[in-house]
């Protein structure tokens, strides 16, 4: 296998963590919607925690993307 092909495959493998991030984000959204559905009065408190956890989880996907880009162009 030449280097160019190995780089492309490596960059694709580096994006596999997106599966886990997808599951995690699904859990966050489902828990948020559940909580708001049960207690609409607590939306303001829930919003802050939701956005914080959402951003922390979403950042993992971006880490994977950066590693993949580093493999491709670095």
């Amino acid at each position, binding site marked *: 296998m030449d280097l160019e092909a190995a780089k492309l495959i490596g960059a694709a493998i580096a994006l596999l963590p997106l599966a886990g991030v997808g599951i995690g984000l699904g859990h966050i959204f489902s828990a948020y919607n559940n909580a708001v559905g049960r207690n609409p009065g607590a939306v303001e408190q829930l919003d802050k925690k939701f*956005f*914080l956890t*959402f*951003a*922390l989880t*979403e*950042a993992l996907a*971006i*880490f994977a*993307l*950066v590693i993949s*880009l580093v493999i491709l162009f670095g």
Partner: protein
Amino acid sequence: MADPIHQFVIQDLVPLNIGGIDVSFTNSALWMVIAATVTTVGLSFAMRQRALVPGRFQVFAENMYEFVANMVRENVGSQGRQYFPFIFTLFCVVLMGNMMGLIPYSFTYTSHLAVTAGLALFIFLWVTALGFYKHGLHFLNFFSPEGVPFFLKFLVIPLEMISYLARPLTLSMRLFANMMAGHLVLKVFAGFCVSLMSVTIVASILPMGFNVIMIAFECLIAFLQAYVFTILTCIYFHDALEMH
């Protein structure tokens, strides 16, 4: 297709060289100066009347203040008051950097690891020094949580230390990577738009529409990342001041 990386290139505007060290005034520095000026002048202008019933600009400035003040109150506690000026400045710096980067032809200084790592390392060193200053060597107890069985401590303490030492890395990488990836996606789809334009103009509407949605999403991310950066700083201050 146009180069999507070109937006991150640092250009010297005023070349300067003092004692063999390159201290040129770059486009990154220019946008930092603009951010500082806009924040200072904007907030002073908004608060110039100090009216009992605030006008439009004053409400904006007061909301911004209240937002960060609440964050500090809830996450750092009563001892955190003296760090409020620093945390508010930090929030303004990161928010202005992220938001002004969305203006076409501007430069996003938070999309450079040097800037975010500088901020994160400064926070990390300050917080660690603060912990040792407040608690002395008892601060080392931070790494061994209470109620852990003796034999598990051999596993828990190294893990805690690693996660503590990884803080500046994750803090800086999160902001830098989010900003860089977001702007890359915007520019790549703008490039698709131009390439498709030469084939059919109708087809180029698709990437254009996607870009419009992405701009809205990037505005959300720009604000969210500033919020996350600030709230994590608050949590680190809380750890140093009160140890868990």
